[in-house]
């Protein structure tokens, strides 16, 4: 064993240091001859003769040297190194070919690796919590109303927590912002409002301090807060004595009890400056813990070891049935479901990312087909070299191995260059990925991504290398050597090359169709009229600390005072308050009743998005009033409760009568039993997302339904910076501790809301262009090679009277055949691909005829261009030159 290893080591040593051992052996042989001739001379032989005799006795020195060398080395390593060196020399000699092949491969591998790094970080990588596979998102659904994936109310959550038999723990969470004061300028800080079990369920361990205890979740417990490491290092300057200190959130004192490390994130977003407080202590959600109606608490459960998801679902069903019996008013029709937390977190982006990964893989495949074609072409031109080698005794296997070594060298170089491109690509991509995609902070080239790149390079090498190697080594000696320099080509090889080019066309067709649809869908999205005039519209937000401003009177007073100040500023007359603002903020969805009209069924309730506005709102936003009147100064706190509904709501619930004068009742605010008279109908607005159709909306006067804060919308042609400065000054004059947050121009906010569709459209366009370019190059390569092979034949045809037009048509016809074959091959796959991207589309059918025609036309035009140049060359072939050729 040991001896074996030593042999191997000594052999490898020799293999890695070629030359030195050879010299040593050479000297030793010389010494041998010298010693022997010395001996012979001593015995009386003449010196010359002695030298000669000694050499003869030693035997064939060259042979000896060879066999020594052979034995001293690992023969396969030797021949691999030999092949690799030869391959490197060959590749270096044909620089153009190598550059094209390596570049194609590098771009393909680089792009695929970069996209994979995003897919891996966002979708595949296990969540950064211990035993993440046990974590499930538990949510409520009301199937009759198509209410899917909503949260829980606190009492329902508490029942789930106390009654279940399948979770080792469940935790609830919500997210919003609180105002941190007392540490420099007031800032709005991301806050996760969590139940006391939260850190136990996620098994988070603080850097220092403690996690929340059950006591922190009880009513009346003193305020406590846990900081994220980033927040601690930021505003708190990594204060080592922070534990036990009190900080002010919304003007209430919270004692810092722990700091969570940077790796612990929840939610898993790029921004990691945040803090956690117990739910009951939150100024907003804390007040909701007693209400059983409502669906706002996101719940995560950790399955007990050994419990299957099916068992857990059965337990959830039993609990839901009991909850429906006990509290039918709130729970009628509601059941509970669960999904792995990982799936839930990336729910929206998962399929989009997988589509992108598939798309970039298609680009890589087309690239591989191109390289395979180049290799086939080279193999043909080198067939004489191969024939000579075979004639000199190289086995077919040996030839194939040598050819394959060339592709391995090519693959390795391409892979290495691809990795470099991936590094650059990942940098670019992670800044391009929309910020609302979870886990983007984790996008990087890590060992998993690196292994993927290596495996990808190996797979690509196999993909483009095997066929050419086998074809190249399949040498028919007789014909090759007899051909006297003219290297004809076997039909099989020609077919292989044509098939590859057709496959490229097919793949490009698939990718262009999918990409075209995504792009057209994005174009449709950007041209959607949001229902209001976004130009020159600016938005800013002020939220009032609820401990300081606790009554509706205070909220009204603050907003009235602020609006009066702003309206007095020059250029800011067009200012209104709304909560929430369309697109920029989320929607508040509330159920309502129509007085005098019974609900359609016991399990269903009507719902609409609820907006509280000041009377100027419709004018400032440019939302038309379709019927009735808008709010005015008379709709005050103590006058008749009124509301304005959207056209969609009117269409949905008052299809055959005028809604004006009808009365609605909401469960919120200010009291649950307020009925409101409909006084007007306003135009539809895309209030959530441009891609979502305008939903039913209802507007109520802010003075009748105030919130602790205000979202300002200002229509102004003044410089936005100056406007914001004015707003900040006026706010500070009222209360120096109030931050003005979420400032933005409405057009920018709309653009930002399209970040994900834009990301998809951009990447799909890039991949589509790459695919188109590669396929065009592929067709061009095949056709122009075919023309150069057939120069002789074309010459004969011309000599026999073929016109130039005929030759031109013949070559273009070949191109058309190839393209048509590609189309025939590609259409079924393209149909399949359109179904894959179907759910990403907006306003475009997945077999949108315009897109399909445009794609087919583009591809055909590219193919025609690729065929045109060789066709022109063929047309100019001179018969005499061609016939003398070769």
């Amino acid at each position: 064993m040991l001896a074996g290893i030593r042999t191997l080591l000594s052999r490898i040593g020799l293999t890695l240091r070629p030359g030195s051992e050879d010299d040593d052996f050479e000297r030793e042989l010389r010494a041998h001859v010298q010693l022997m001739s010395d001996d012979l001379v001593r015995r009386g032989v003449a010196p010359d003769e002695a030298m000669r005799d000694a050499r003869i006795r030693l035997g064939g020195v060259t042979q000896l040297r060879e066999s020594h060398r052979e034995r001293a080395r690992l023969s396969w390593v030797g021949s691999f190194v030999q092949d690799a060196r030869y391959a490197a020399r060959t590749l270096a000699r044909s620089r153009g070919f190598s550059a094209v092949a390596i570049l194609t491969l590098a771009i393909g591998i680089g792009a695929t690796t970069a996209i994979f790094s995003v897919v891996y970080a966002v979708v595949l990588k296990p969540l950064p919590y211990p035993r993440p596979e046990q974590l499930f998102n538990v949510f409520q659904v009301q199937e009759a109303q198509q209410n899917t994936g909503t949260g829980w109310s606190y009492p329902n959550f508490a029942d789930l927590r106390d009654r279940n038999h399948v979770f080792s723990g469940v935790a609830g969470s919500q997210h919003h912002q609180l105002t941190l004061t007392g540490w420099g300028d007031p800032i709005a800080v991301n806050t996760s409002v969590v139940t006391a079990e939260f850190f136990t369920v996620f098994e988070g361990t603080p850097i220092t301090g403690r996690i929340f205890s059950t006591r922190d979740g009880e009513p009346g417990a003193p305020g406590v807060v846990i900081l994220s490491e980033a927040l601690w290092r930021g505003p708190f300057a990594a204060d080592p004595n922070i534990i036990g200190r009190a900080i002010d959130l919304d003007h209430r004192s919270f004692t810092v009890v722990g700091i969570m490390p940077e790796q612990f994130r929840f939610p898993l977003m790029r921004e990691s400056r945040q803090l956690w407080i117990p739910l009951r202590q939150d100024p907003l959600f804390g007040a909701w813990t007693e209400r059983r109606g409502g669906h706002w608490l996101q719940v995560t459960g950790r399955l007990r070891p050994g419990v299957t998801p099916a068992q857990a679902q059965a337990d959830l069903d039993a609990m839901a049935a009991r909850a429906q019996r006990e509290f039918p008013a709130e729970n009628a029709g509601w059941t509970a479901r669960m999904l792995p937390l990982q799936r839930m977190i990336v729910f929206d982006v998962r399929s989009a990312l997988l589509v992108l990964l598939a798309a970039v893989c298609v680009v890589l495949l087309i690239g591989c087909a191109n390289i395979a074609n180049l290799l086939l072409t080279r193999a043909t031109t080198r067939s004489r070299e191969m024939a000579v080698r075979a004639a000199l005794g190289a086995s077919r296997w040996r030839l194939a191995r040598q050819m394959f070594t060339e592709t391995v060298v090519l693959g390795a170089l391409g892979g290495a260059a691809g990795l470099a491109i991936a590094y650059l690509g990942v940098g670019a991509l992670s800044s391009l990925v929309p910020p609302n995609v979870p886990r983007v902070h984790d996008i990087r080239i890590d060992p998993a991504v690196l292994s993927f790149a290596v495996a990808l390079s190996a797979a690509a090498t196999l993909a483009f290398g095997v066929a050419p190697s086998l074809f190249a080594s399949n040498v028919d000696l007789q014909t090759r050597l007899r051909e006297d320099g003219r290297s004809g080509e076997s039909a099989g090889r020609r077919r292989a090359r044509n098939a590859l080019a057709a496959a490229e066309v097919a793949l490009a067709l698939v990718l262009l169709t999918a990409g075209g649809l995504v792009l057209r869908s994005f174009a449709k999205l950007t041209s959607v009229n949001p229902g209001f005039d976004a130009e020159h519209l600016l938005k800013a937000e002020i939220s009032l600390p609820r401990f300081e401003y606790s009554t509706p009177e205070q909220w009204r007073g603050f907003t009235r005072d602020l609006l009066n100040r702003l309206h007095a500023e020059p250029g800011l007359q067009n200012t209104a308050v709304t909560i929430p603002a369309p697109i920029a903020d989320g929607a508040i969805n509330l159920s309502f009743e129509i007085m005098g009209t019974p609900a359609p069924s016991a399990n269903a309730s009507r719902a609409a998005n609820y907006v509280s506005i000041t009377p100027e709102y419709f004018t400032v936003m440019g939302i038309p009033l379709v019927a009735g009147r808008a709010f005015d100064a008379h709709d005050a706190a103590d006058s008749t409760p009124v509301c304005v509904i959207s056209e969609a709501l009117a269409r949905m619930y008052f299809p055959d009568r005028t809604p004006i004068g009808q009365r609605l009742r909401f469960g919120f605010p200010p009291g649950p039993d307020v009925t409101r008279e409909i006084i007007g109908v306003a135009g539809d607005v895309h209030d959530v997302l441009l891609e979502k159709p305008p939903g039913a909306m209802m507007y109520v006067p802010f003075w009748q339904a105030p919130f602790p804060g205000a979202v300002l919308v200002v229509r102004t042609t003044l410089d936005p910076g100056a406007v914001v400065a004015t707003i900040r000054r006026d706010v500070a004059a009222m209360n120096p501790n109030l931050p003005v947050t979420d400032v933005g121009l409405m057009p920018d906010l709309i653009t930002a809301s399209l970040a994900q569709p834009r990301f998809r459209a951009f990447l799909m366009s890039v991949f589509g262009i790459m695919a188109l370019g590669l396929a065009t190059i592929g067709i061009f390569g095949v056709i122009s090679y075919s023309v150069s092979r057939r120069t002789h034949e074309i010459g004969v045809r011309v000599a026999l009277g073929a016109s130039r037009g005929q030759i031109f048509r013949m070559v273009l016809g070949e191109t058309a055949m190839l393209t048509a074959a590609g189309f025939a091959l590609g259409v079924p796959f393209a149909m399949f691909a359109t179904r894959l991207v179907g759910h990403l589309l907006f306003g475009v059918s997945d077999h949108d005829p315009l897109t399909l025609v445009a794609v087919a036309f583009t591809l055909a035009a590219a193919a025609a261009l690729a065929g045109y140049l060789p066709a022109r060359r063929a047309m100019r072939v001179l018969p005499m030159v061609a016939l003398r050729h070769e």
Partner: protein
Amino acid sequence: MHRGKLDILQGTLDLMVLQILDTMGPMHGYGLARRLEQVSEDALQINHGTIYASLLRLIQRGWIAGAWGTSENGRKAKFYSLTSSGRKQLRAEADKWERMSAVVGRVLRTAGRG
């Protein structure tokens, strides 16, 4: 093939090289070749080159080691000596060889008589 001279098996040559190095101490390649011819009273006809193949095999197995030195008449030459594992190997091989040649001899004698 020279009449009256013996051809030798590869493994046998390795064994003889080990044996010579064991009894004579470090030697160079030519010395080994000469010694082989002397002890066999020139019955063994070897191509001196084959010695080197044998030496390389033994080095790769770690049974001998080579180092450059000076010959008795002042020439540079590479000297080979037995390593401890080589010595062990020689013991084992020699034992085996003796048992084997005893058996072969017996068989040949029996066959001759019959």
